[in-house]
């Protein structure tokens, strides 16, 4: 059983740790060491605060304490540590004033440096996710392990190795600039969206897995929007996640089955999150640059969010947005979605033409949604026999049982004689 004090430590860690680690990493140039120092400071605080009372600015208190420890540590390791010279200079360069700046104005930049470091390309995808959840999200190893359904030791190792890789590779604690920025930013956004999708998929597969990852990804996205406000794709990603999250309560039935977007009870959509999503999308547009893949996907999600009923969906607009999306992110899956939107907007025959053109795409050969979409369109065109065999084919390709059953049911509903 965890004690109340331990839970309090977690809560303060959660609120303060990212800022502390980011500020300290700028001084000591090593995220692993920065994390240790931040943690030591927190433990000291928890020993002292019960007697002395909580200071007015706990963050500043923790930062000052951690910085003092950093300097002590560097002095003690004077002879052993080759980095002493660097640190020693660092310790003198950074005065109390700097520490205060690190807590106020400069903290956004430090946080940005930290997330660029935890999402560094020298780390594997899963290491990036784990390290970001730990250092930016302030999650415990236990929570990360729970969210990914892996052993705690696995996550702990992953994080230790990631920190070692960063140290060994002498990855500078800096935010990239110029041409590098776009590429590195897309790596950061990818990590956040990966996290979100992992949570989104898990919460549908077995509904009792809590959507912690979705919430965490959304929180990281909201933080990014504050520290990198000039990047339209950051707002685009936030918008996309806010709007997708708004459907949480509507997308799973009481018995745990997935409910498709068009069949969802829109009264269950979270209007607060939709409003936040639309505001974020507006911020993306206001940057005055062409919309990127996340903002375009968010714009599509927004079309659904703004339709009060499924019938009111503006499919022509969605088709146009998919076309724009296919230009910035060419993919046969985007094309398939565009075909669906075209069919909804202009009739199934137009959609079918596009779907048939995709039949030769090698990437879609084993993709169950291609025959499933084709089956749908054939039903609408009254070609029941062909539709039935498409649903059967889709069922044979489906990746999970509920999906397969749904498709077989649709085939069976069409009857053996195709009526």
């Amino acid at each position, binding site marked *: 059983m965890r004690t109340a004090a331990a839970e309090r430590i977690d809560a303060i860690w959660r609120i303060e740790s990212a800022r502390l680690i980011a500020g300290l990493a700028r001084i000591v140039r090593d995220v692993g060491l920065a994390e240790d120092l931040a943690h030591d400071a927190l433990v000291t605080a928890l020993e002292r605060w019960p007697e002395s009372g909580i200071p007015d600015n706990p963050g500043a208190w923790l930062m000052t304490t951690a910085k003092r420890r950093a300097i002590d540590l560097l002095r003690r390791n004077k002879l052993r540590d080759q980095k002493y010279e660097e640190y020693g200079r660092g310790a003198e360069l950074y005065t109390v004033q700097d520490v205060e700046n690190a807590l106020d104005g400069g903290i956004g930049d430090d946080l940005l440096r930290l997330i660029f470091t935890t999402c560094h390309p020298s780390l594997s995808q899963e290491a990036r996710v784990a390290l970001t959840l730990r250092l930016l999200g302030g999650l415990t190893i236990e929570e990360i392990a729970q969210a990914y359904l*892996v052993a705690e030791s696995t996550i702990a190792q992953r994080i230790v190795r990631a920190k070692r890789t960063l140290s060994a590779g002498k990855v500078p604690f800096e935010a990239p600039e110029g041409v590098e920025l776009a590429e590195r930013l897309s790596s950061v956004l990818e990590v956040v969206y990966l996290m979100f999708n992992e949570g989104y998929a898990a919460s549908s597969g077995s509904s009792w897995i809590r959507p912690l990852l979705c919430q965490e990804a959304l929180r990281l996205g909201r933080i990014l929007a504050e520290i990198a406000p000039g990047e339209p794709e950051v707002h685009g990603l936030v918008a996309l996640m806010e709007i997708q999250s708004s459907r949480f309560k509507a997308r799973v039935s009481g018995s745990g089955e997935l409910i498709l977007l068009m069949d969802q009870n829109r009264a269950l959509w979270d209007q607060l999150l939709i409003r936040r999503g639309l505001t974020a999308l507006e911020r993306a547009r206001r940057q005055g640059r062409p919309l990127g893949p996340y903002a375009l996907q968010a714009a599509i999600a927004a079309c659904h969010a703004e339709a009060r009923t499924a019938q009111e969906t503006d499919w022509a607009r969605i088709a146009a947005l998919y076309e724009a999306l296919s230009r910035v992110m060419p993919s046969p899956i985007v094309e398939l979605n565009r075909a669906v939107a075209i069919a909804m907007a202009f009739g199934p025959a137009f959609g079918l033409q596009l779907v048939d053109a995709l039949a030769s795409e090698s990437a879609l050969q084993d993709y169950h949604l291609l025959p499933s979409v084709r089956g749908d369109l054939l039903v609408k065109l009254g070609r029941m026999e062909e539709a039935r065999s498409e649903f059967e084919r889709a069922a044979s390709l489906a990746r999970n049982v509920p999906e397969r059953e749904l498709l077989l049911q649709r085939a069976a509903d069409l009857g053996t004689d195709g009526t």
Partner: protein
Amino acid sequence: MRFMMIVKATEDTEAGVMPSQELVEAMQRYNEELVKAGVLLAADGLMASSNAIRISYPEPGGKPKITDGPFTEVKEIIAGYTLIEVKSREEAIEWAMRMPDPHGHGAGQIELRQVFDPMDLSGNPETKAKEAALREQLEQINNG
């Protein structure tokens, strides 16, 4: 999980007395902190109860009774709210403790309430047991 920090009304808020510049600035700083931490969902201040109404149902199945404001029991009136999304009750408490004293003259009161969410199963003992069992299984697989 979501929590609502509810700021209770005072004689001043009910009388339409504006808070001091200092308090307004402290509140702004606090809200900015919440935004930067990615936890703020919404925050609003409410007007005094003088233009409010209350609808009550004194008779079961009967007609509603409408009472015009202002209302007298000041401490039972809400003056504003801040809705946050956090990971734990403890985190919500930490944030609530950091909200500036909303009145500053001895009458400030904040109430922290958790928003009911049927999707949030994290507090459910059955869920926790299931998770623990599954993780134990995984540890065994990973270790052996």
